[in-house]
């Protein structure tokens, strides 16, 4: 008999340790600590502020928030899914380029897009000015600073989350299920609704929950539109009424609402599984002819123009007026810092997201799933509130450390952990775990338990399996995750502002500085730089997906 390769002949059979829930909770702790700081506020109700808000503010805000969340969720689904389906299943002039170009708006911060949209389409903007020259009156033009305007703007800014994930789903679900549907007499459209869409559910849910969390936690965009949402109440309580506790309580409610939604989805999904169906060679795209091809190209162009090229043009125009005075050697450090933070965060957060998704998949997935749910809530908290949630425990730890070191007779600076990259990166992890987790977790669905069992029976341990089975199979999902985290960190303001080291400026800090004094022309320059730097990973992602 040939020598058997796998380990054997241990004196006593080793126990099977299940570390996965432990790892999941360890990762979740990164979010849970700041989250608990926020939730702790619930212990001390701020009744007078609550009474005021409930009487005069909240009713309208809740209506506004519901409209916005619903509108943006539907809008991003419509836009993201249809564009993903179009570029994944059909062939038409420019498809290969549109496939990655359509992800570009990801690099455009929503708050920047908001001010660009207002700059372009409001009463004083070039369009309405032109209309007034022609027709003498532009009051009939739909106001951009309106509910519809915010929904449209946020949809254009956020649809790439859904687009990227949906495209990933459509490319990996294999053609067999669709073929089966065709054989059963379903038209392509029916196949889309009854097979492709249900099979893409984890991806769609992942994308839309990112969009929803970002929408619910957004302040910059809605503030630019002066459209009051739930976060308006949070910031009002904190900055205007000087009551951070009340603000944290409101934020806690937001978090709990998001958690409830997530658990509801989990329940609704039940025991469904989403492995690829059978032999999954990438399907040959269907060539569109004539008018249909023109329409497909035109639709992609229109969306790109509205969400990216026209706004970029406006930014360029603004930036041109200040580029001589503002664009200097400092930008090298702004860009370097931004890339360093975004790159570091992307690597860390994607690693954590992968471990989390891996743990959730394990045998004792229940506890790990709960941990993952909590760990990804950081994305639903308004950035500034989470930043304080991160800062308070860090500062407390710093104070303990300083006290301890001084007791030992050491000389200490006033900060040890604060202002270090480690803390910054952990803070980003607390905020953006969801962004890495959702696409990874969705991609994980395509790996069958039997593939894992096969690897295990071939002698692979959990770690080796991660390396040799999951990583290669998850490549697409992980790349998407890394891209989204990278771009999100590039755009992020409150955490960067609060945790950065002295004298450390990034592109987004620069945007903050300029916009906080209403200097949109100056802000256009760093905003444009964010977009340009963000293009690099988007282009990388494009090449990666095209290669498959």
């Amino acid at each position: 008999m040939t020598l058997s390769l796998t380990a054997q002949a241990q004196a006593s059979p080793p126990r099977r340790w299940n570390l996965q829930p432990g790892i999941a909770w360890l990762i979740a702790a990164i979010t849970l600590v700041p989250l608990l700081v926020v939730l702790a506020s619930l212990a001390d109700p701020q009744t007078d502020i609550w009474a005021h808000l409930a009487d005069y503010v909240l009713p309208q805000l809740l209506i506004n928030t519901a409209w916005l969340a619903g509108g943006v969720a539907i809008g991003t689904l419509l836009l993201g899914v249809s564009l993903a389906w179009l570029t994944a299943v059909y062939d038409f002039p420019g498809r290969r380029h549109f496939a990655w170009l359509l992800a570009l708006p990801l690099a455009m911060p929503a708050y920047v897009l908001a001010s660009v949209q207002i700059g372009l389409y409001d009463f004083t903007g070039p369009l309405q000015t032109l209309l007034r020259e022609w027709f003498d009156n532009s009051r009939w033009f739909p106001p951009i600073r309106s509910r519809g305007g915010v929904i449209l703007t946020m949809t254009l800014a956020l649809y790439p989350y859904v687009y990227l994930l949906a495209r990933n789903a459509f490319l990996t679900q294999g053609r067999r299920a669709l073929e089966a549907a065709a054989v059963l007499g379903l038209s392509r459209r029916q196949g889309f609704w009854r097979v492709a869409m249900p099979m893409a559910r984890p991806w769609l849910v992942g994308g839309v929950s990112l969009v929803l969390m970002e929408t619910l936690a957004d302040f910059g965009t809605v503030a630019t539109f002066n459209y009051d949402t739930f976060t308006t109440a949070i910031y009002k309580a904190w900055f205007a009424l000087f009551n951070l506790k009340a603000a944290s309580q409101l934020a806690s409610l937001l978090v709990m609402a998001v958690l409830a939604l997530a658990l509801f989805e989990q329940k609704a999904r039940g025991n469904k599984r989403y492995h690829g169906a059978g032999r999954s060679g990438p399907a040959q795209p269907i060539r569109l002819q004539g008018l249909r091809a023109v329409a497909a190209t035109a639709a992609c162009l229109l969306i790109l123009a509205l969400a990216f090229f026209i706004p970029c043009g406006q930014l360029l125009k603004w930036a041109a007026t200040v580029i001589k005075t503002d664009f200097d050697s400092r930008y090298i450090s702004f860009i370097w810092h931004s890339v360093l933070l975004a790159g570091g965060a992307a690597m860390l957060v994607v690693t954590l997201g992968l471990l989390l998704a891996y743990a959730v998949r394990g045998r004792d997935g229940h506890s790990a799933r709960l941990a993952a749910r909590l760990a990804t809530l950081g994305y639903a908290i308004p950035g500034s509130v989470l930043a304080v949630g991160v800062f308070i425990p860090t500062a407390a730890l710093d104070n303990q450390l300083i006290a301890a070191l001084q007791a030992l007779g050491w000389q200490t600076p006033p900060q040890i952990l604060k202002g270090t990259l480690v803390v910054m990166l952990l803070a980003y992890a607390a905020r953006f775990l969801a962004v890495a987790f959702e696409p990874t977790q969705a991609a994980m669905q395509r790996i069958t338990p039997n593939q894992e069992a096969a690897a295990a029976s071939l002698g692979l341990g959990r770690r080796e399996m991660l390396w040799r089975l999951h990583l290669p199979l998850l490549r697409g999902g992980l790349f998407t995750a890394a891209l989204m985290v990278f771009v999100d960190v590039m755009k992020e303001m409150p955490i960067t502002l609060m945790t950065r080291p002295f004298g450390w400026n990034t592109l987004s800090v620069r945007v903050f500085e300029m916009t906080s004094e209403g200097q949109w022309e100056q802000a256009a320059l760093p905003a444009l730089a964010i977009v340009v730097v963000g293009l690099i990973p988007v282009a990388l992602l494009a090449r990666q997906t095209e290669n498959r």
Partner: protein
Amino acid sequence: MPNTLLTLDQINVNFGPKRVLEGLSFSLQAGEIGCLLGASGCGKTTALRAIAGFEPVAAGRVILDGQQVASSGQEWTPQQRGIGMVFQDYALFPHLNVTDNIRFGLSRLDKVEQKRRVEELLEVVQLTEVANAYPHALSGGQQQRVALARALAPAPRLLLLDEPFSNLDVELRERLNQEVRDILKSRDITALLVTHDQHEAFSLADKVGVMHAGRLLQWDTPYKLYHEPAERFVADFIGEGVFLPAVVTAAGDIEFNADPQLGHRPCWPVCQARPGQAVQVLLRPDDILHDDTSPMQARVVKKAFRGAQFLYTLSLPSGQTVLSLVPSHHDHAIGEAIGIRLEIDHVIAFGV
């Protein structure tokens, strides 16, 4: 001297509060091919997964090559057991080509040895031409053979096959069946497969166990399962046949009281009754012979053409029906009466 390679000793497996395997015991000699046979949902795949280490056992022991690899709370990981497995859906790795799929479990060997084994196995499973193809470009039969080669590559102590041929068409299934048996036997590999198809079980396995509702009813050679089923369920499940009522005489014979022309036979080797008790006796189609000279007549009720033979359903004078396999040159019309004779070597009688 054959040695026992695998022993299951009173294995229980639970899914939550539900017991899906109860008191499973059997053993497999080195070089033997065993098979768990049963309808879907009987627990056979669970048994396989428990042996492989994918399901924990709630009670009992699994002993592999003299080592206890599983008991309640003491589980070796699948990696530690050195058991190969072929999955029903093959579970090939879509990101690796055929060569790399087969090489997957060989990373601890040096490159030269890896190459040697992969080449050898490619030849064994006749896939050398498609060595660089990716799984999705292969036919079902080819995928199946990749899965087999991949499982065999690390030279496992035991090979498990979960419904290995169920995804294939009938013709391919029979051919591969024989191929796989030849490969396993030529390499002296101990294997255990599960299937719901008794032809597959009989043609591939040395020992077959019939499972029902989480229990193993009988573990035996195919011949004995057929001719000496230990339980009525097994007798029903394996092969064709009918039960006729009879009684056990004081002498220990059985006597068909409704159709006495069938005659007496010793109640042996399976006789679950004492003298004087009523029994049900299993009559296989090959137990009833067509004999024009026999005084006993039966009427043809139904007939099924099977090429070399007809399977006749015959009505006895009492009105009970029996089955009979008859060479196909004896073509009788329905309603015609033909002479039959009981030619039974193994009497299988279960108490009523």
